[in-house]
């Protein structure tokens, strides 16, 4: 399961990265998308547009292609 598969409003913890561009991955990680980070999908733009995430208390938007590279496990809360 990846961030992309999360429904709007649902939260999960980031588990690992699955491939993707290494340079983009470093950037995403520096923005707080590291293992164990709490990620909630806040909103999805229509027609495959960017996804809005709440990452440990702030809002970040990323492209769907990048959302597909982040594996998550559903959080208890």
């Amino acid at each position: 399961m990846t961030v992309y598969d999360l429904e709007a409003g649902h939260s999960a913890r980031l588990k690992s990265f699955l491939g993707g561009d290494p340079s983009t991955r470093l950037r995403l990680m520096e923005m707080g998308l590291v293992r164990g980070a709490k990620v909630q999908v806040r909103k999805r733009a229509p027609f495959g547009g960017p996804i809005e995430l709440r990452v440990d208390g702030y809002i970040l938007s990323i492209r769907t292609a990048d959302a597909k590279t982040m594996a998550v496990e559903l959080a208890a809360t």
Partner: protein
Amino acid sequence: MKQIALTGNPNTGKTTLFNRLTGLNQKVANYPGVTVELRKGTTLFLDTETQIVDLPGTYSLVARSRDEAVTTEFLAGLNPGQQSPDVVVVVIDATNLLRNLYFSLSVLELKLPSVVVLNMMDEAEASGLKIDIAGLERHLQVPVVGISARNGTGIDKLRQTIEKTLASAEPQVFSRSWSYSQPVEKLTQQIRDQLPYPLGSDGVALWVLGSTAASLANQEAPEIVVHPQLAHAATIAKSGILDGATGVGEQLIEDRYQEARHIVDRVLDSSATDETHISDRIDAILLHPVGGLLIFVLTMGALFQGVFAWAEPFMTFIEETITVLQTVVHSIIPPGALADLLADGIVAGVGNVLVFLPQIAFLFAFISVLEDTGYLARAAFISDQIMARIGLHGRAFVPLLSGFACAVPAIMSARAIESPRDRLVTILVTPLISCSARLPIYTLIISSLFASEENVLGLFSVAGLMMLGLYLSSIAVTILAAWILKRTILRGPTPPLVIELPPYRMPSLVNLVQQVIERCKIFVSEAGTVILACSVMLWALLYFPSEIPQEFQLEEKQAVVLSNTLEGPEREDALISLQAEAKATQLRNSYAGRLGQAIEPIFVPLGYDWKIVVGIIGSFAAREVFVSTLSLVYGVQDGGDDPSPLRKRLRQQVHPKTGQPVFTPLVGLSLLAFFLLALQCMSTVAAIRRETQSWNWPLFALVYSGVLAWGTALLIYQGGQWLGFT
């Protein structure tokens, strides 16, 4: 002079704090070698003038481009003749502690005297966040001050803390009490051993490691660690990463985040926070699939209207003032070359510079408000879908949109695009967008040469359809050019969209005023000089030699008119039109006229004669000048704003040899294409030079758009003739 540097993530209110500390006593300096600006200001600390430098907001010290390396270079004092600042002030958004602490740790690791500022404490408290400041101080080992830069609370305490650090003989610096994972730690140690004194800090070694890992991860990235004193360390980092420690870049980030989380867990009590955020409710409207799009269109429409229309009366005012000044100059200085130089060269040139200020002011006022409120990031989020298709970032939308009003402020606003390469692509294609200065040319050509009033399908006029066609072509060409540039000389992947959507906040008037003044000042001092010089040069080309050639026999002709039977207004008219003819003859003999005749052969295949070429040369001062230059060349008496005498004259023009009309619809199309595509504007050239800090890029833009314009006009004219059109 002692120096203090402000650093921090974007959207932390760093610039608001900077404005608080310096008043508006500040200026912008270009950082050498790159296109980054540093804002510098002064204030009194310990009763001594102290310089404050506002470093660009960044999420990371790790650099992906030379531009991003500026913060570390500046803090570590890597450039010759420059030392580390005396105090580093790290600005943190208290409502977003974790990510901000990640960045703060990387700065503190540089082991410089530092003060950490928790900004937006009022917001944090209001949302129920409790931060143990003393606890944070224990973890970070440097003073921590909670403030609200917007309200001014805590500023005095911050000033005292900075002064104490400045005065201290041995200020407390951070010292790491935890370890990175073993591979990171080992490689960092090896790198640190290669660093010359006084660079041997943890932070610099970790920066070299992180930046090297980032540049290895991105094949397109240039070498970032370019400093000779770091060369050896960078080699060690590179070989270390390639020899098996491939994951160190990621490991480093994870470890540091883990430490940041460790600290947050101990100093932050978020149990009382309200889970519903006000920004969520606003975003539910502003980012709504339908409503949000509508609001986006309205907002961008207002921004465009501001630059396009609201700036207009101010521009007219400036133009009228310049006209008055010219009259004044002519009335106090005896007629002659000096008066003409002052009035028509210099005063007009200054006018050419000042006339851009209203558009710049309106655009940056809008941008400042949109940025401060947090909507600009949302606008980028919304427009990213379209922009990503042509390989550009969502942030390229505002500059490209503004380009329809004027390329000059548009190019200046491209600064918001992070990646230098994408910023450059945006800057280079912006001149292709059909700006408002092209409108008078379109109008003149369409109304002179086409049955512009005629209806098509009973709905549209020919003129309206042609205008629409021009704008659509302009958009298509701009997209195509961006697409080609992104695949050729500025090749690079579509930039990752990683945009923070900051909480909605009230805009600040101080920030707005500061932005507007700053941009206007930069434009006048850096682009203005180039524009003024070009204006005077163009004036001289058209003015000298200023005598009316002997063979025109002006006096004889005047005598004929005077001795003829004409009386009253008719005689006046005859004299005025004789004067216009004389002026046209002077222009033909001027350097610009001779230049036009000399390069006429280049333009003959496009269907132009030398007079049009002179118009093209003259229009380099500003596209709309094409119309007035044509009036001069064709000896049309100044009809003010009424273009009909010129229109009539254009239709009458015939080739001296063939007797065929010069201005046919086909020539009209060819001219429209030329003006649509060519970078016929010295102010745009000056703006590109200022923003790219180089003459190469404006020259490149001139050449590529010139070739494109010439080629397209050629294709239209020759192809049209071949197909049998006239």
